[in-house]
């Protein structure tokens, strides 16, 4: 099935590219991946990192970082966790569907671009990177009490749409950009330890034409040229 998907995807992407690339011939490729790593929203900085376990970027390393500027740290002198309360209030919403009570969290905040969630894949000299929008984290309220209990954090679900920026691609992927999607879970068994992040399935759909340069890079490039 995945072979059929890949062929169809390549055909569609190529057709799309040929239609839009103003005459330039483009190529596409699919980069499947799975990830295993650790990190925690309660850490500062918020960094999830680990290994790329399948696909052409394996064995490689990944880093997913959420900009936590402005997030409070926990005050160990108080009974509650100020950082967790801040996250729950600002990024999660409660769905009170009977029998399916849960929280959905969006990073960046839903409807915004902040805080940025960035990602990097690396294997030897090959590099891919960009932003994630959105990283969705779902926590089931198994006892439907409206409170996040520790056992409810033991298995959270995650889903992510990836944006691959050309200026962060390198090595075998130099000049490539694209989008992707992935899903998995996040396990938090102990609040004093990092969570375990597993991305079971992910795919990046890359192209080597119509890769507009990141706006910040454009600005910086223009500034550098001005002062040269």
């Amino acid at each position, binding site marked *: 099935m995945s072979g059929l998907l890949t062929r169809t*995807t390549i055909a569609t992407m190529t057709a799309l590219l040929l239609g839009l690339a103003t005459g330039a011939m483009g190529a596409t490729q699919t980069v499947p991946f799975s990830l295993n790593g650790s990190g925690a929203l309660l850490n500062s900085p918020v960094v999830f990192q680990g290994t790329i376990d399948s696909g052409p970027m394996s064995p490689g390393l990944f880093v997913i970082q959420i900009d936590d500027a402005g997030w409070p740290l926990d005050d160990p002198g108080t009974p509650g966790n100020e950082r967790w309360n801040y996250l729950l209030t600002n990024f999660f919403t409660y769905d009170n569907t009977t029998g*399916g009570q849960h929280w*959905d969290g969006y990073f960046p905040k839903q409807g915004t671009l902040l805080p940025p969630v960035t990602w990097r894949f690396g294997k030897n000299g090959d590099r891919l990177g960009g932003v994630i929008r959105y990283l969705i984290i*779902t926590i089931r309220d198994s006892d439907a009490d409206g409170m996040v209990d520790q056992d409810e954090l033991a298995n959270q679900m995650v889903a*992510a749409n990836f944006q691959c920026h050309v200026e962060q691609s390198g090595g075998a992927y130099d000049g490539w950009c694209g989008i992707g*999607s992935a899903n998995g*879970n996040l396990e938090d068994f102990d609040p004093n330890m990092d969570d375990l992040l597993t991305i079971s399935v992910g795919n990046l759909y890359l192209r080597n034409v119509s890769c507009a340069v990141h706006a910040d890079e454009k600005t910086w490039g223009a500034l550098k040229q001005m002062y040269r």
Partner: protein
Amino acid sequence: MKKTAIAVVAVVVALTFGSISAWAQVPSHMVFDVGGTFNFMESPVFIDGSVTAGEPLLLGGYWNILVDDTGWPGDSDKQARWDYLSASYYEPNYDPDSGTWTATFDENTTASSPQWSCGRTGIGKMTGTATLQMTVIDMDADGELDTDERSFIVFSGTLIVVKNGEGVFAGYCGLGSYSGSSENLHPEEFADDVFTGSNILDIEDCSVPNENVSWGHVKAKYAR
């Protein structure tokens, strides 16, 4: 003759209950692939998929998400419906740095949470709610969502399994996540999108209250 009939019935009964018993082994972690079609230009918005590989209990079964389109223009004027969808879900969620739009469909953005169901006839059914996000590329980087840019979409989301399943899944609850991509060869005609994806589910028997399960674990621990 009578003995033979009784023996045949006994064998049939044994096979029947034997097979049910075998099917009743519901794994706590399930991984499977899905594929199918959807069309947000038609009401109701029904992501109509089937399980194409993976978990034997679900293989050949169905996998669906129903997105609540209450308040959207009807499907008789597809252009008007697309304009609404674009203006309400995609355009406010443009990322100029990435050249992408990401629309989200969940309890915050639709009249009610998307409804998810999965199962297989003769085996059982699971239902619940879902989040769904879909990303489209701005290929010509003009900030306008052009018709041909709707040709390719990536999507992902999370799932909640509510304890109202049927068959072998009766009493089970849990959660899951999925991701994939879709293609549309004729977006200008508002044709169906064809999608493929992957899904994981972590479920448990919730017919026993949590307290009892916990107490059972505690007793088992100290009974050694």
